[in-house]
């Protein structure tokens, strides 16, 4: 039960931070998507069903608090989660560079997907959206990837604690 509710609580906390604290960063375009990092981590460490539901819920929360009426994140977040599930046994994610690249590419893939869906589903033509690749997609993917090596080890410690709180305590005290 804890393995479901704690990530859920963490997702809500991250979303709150993303809509308040991270908005006060001097450059708004460089705003890391910390909920995406959590979703990717769930994709690497959680089972497909419970993790998939959690990813959907986080996407749903994103849709709820954003100006998006089409529910794009409710679709993209589970897809990103399953993408991470596919690659979890194929990529080595221990170093800074591998974690950075993994999250950067995932954020870029999600951005492309959102752009395609957004322009495809909108009833009126939106004009040229490709400048957004450079003004929004790349800066956001880069900033998200940059803080991943800080968050991934913290998530791992949290997961260890959840799976074996006593073991964690013994390890910590030596």
């Amino acid at each position, binding site marked *: 039960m804890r393995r479901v509710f704690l990530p859920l609580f963490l997702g809500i906390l991250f979303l709150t931070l993303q809509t308040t604290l991270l908005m006060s960063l001097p450059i708004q375009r460089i705003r890391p998507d910390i909920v995406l990092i959590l979703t990717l981590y769930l994709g690497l460490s959680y089972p497909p069903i419970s993790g998939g539901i959690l990813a959907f819920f986080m996407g749903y929360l994103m849709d709820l608090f954003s100006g998006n009426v089409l529910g794009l994140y409710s679709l993209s977040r589970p897809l990103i989660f399953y993408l991470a599930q596919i690659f979890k046994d194929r990529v080595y994610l221990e170093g800074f560079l591998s974690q950075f690249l993994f999250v950067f590419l995932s954020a870029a893939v999600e951005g492309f997907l959102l752009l395609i869906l957004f322009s495809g589903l909108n009833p009126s033509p939106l004009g040229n959206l490709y400048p957004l690749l450079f003004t*929004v997609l790349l800066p956001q993917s880069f900033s998200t990837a940059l803080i991943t090596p800080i968050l991934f080890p913290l998530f791992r410690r949290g997961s260890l604690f959840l799976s074996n709180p006593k073991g964690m305590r013994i390890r910590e005290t030596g």
Partner: protein
Amino acid sequence: MDALLIELCSPFQKASTFVIKTVQGTFREYLFLVHLQKENAGLKQRIAELQKENDQMKEMAIAHERLQKLLQFREKISSSVIAAEVIGQDPSSWFKSVTLNKGEKDGVRKGMAVISAEGVIGQILKTAPDYSTVLLITDYNSAIDSIVRRTRAKAIVEGKGENRCLLKYLLRADDVVVGDIVVTSGLGGNFPKGLMVGDIKKVDKRGHGIFQHAELVPSVDLTKLEEVLVITESSLPIHEEKGKKGKKVK
């Protein structure tokens, strides 16, 4: 003999006095320094407290000025409005919205216009009992029926993602120049007539077709929103000031 003894002993005495004075001086300076350090720490703390107080006062003065402006604007408009505070921004970079601390319990409904003293902000997109989400005019999904104040040319203001909007369905024959002010037409039903939307920054008459393209910068800085007004019911159009003539496009 006495003189010799004095001459022999005096250097030791001198040395001893020097050592004692040095030790005493160092000790005194140390004690003084300790005291000074304490005083310094106390003064630093006092400066920090005063600085904090000063910052709070400055912040209060700015907030007072902002609220005064909003109140004056509220008195000027003939619609009934609800004042709300912005408590959150859009979690994604792709969409443009803000969350307000007022919801259905306060009378906020979907589609209501959201404005500030500087002009139009957007409209209510989603509501909850105590909170609501506003779709900003810069969002791709936003569209507001507007007119150019000087020439009364009709157009639809659509969001362009960044802090810019696009003037769509503006007839090529219409006289529109850079600097022209765009206001709400009041036709949509949500916004009262004459609310400032922004000013035209770029006009493009190149290409074919019956429409020309124009880019508009919103009159409100949507990245720095703090307090807003939600129009719950609009009755009379807002009194418009005489339009200023803008620069001609070359």
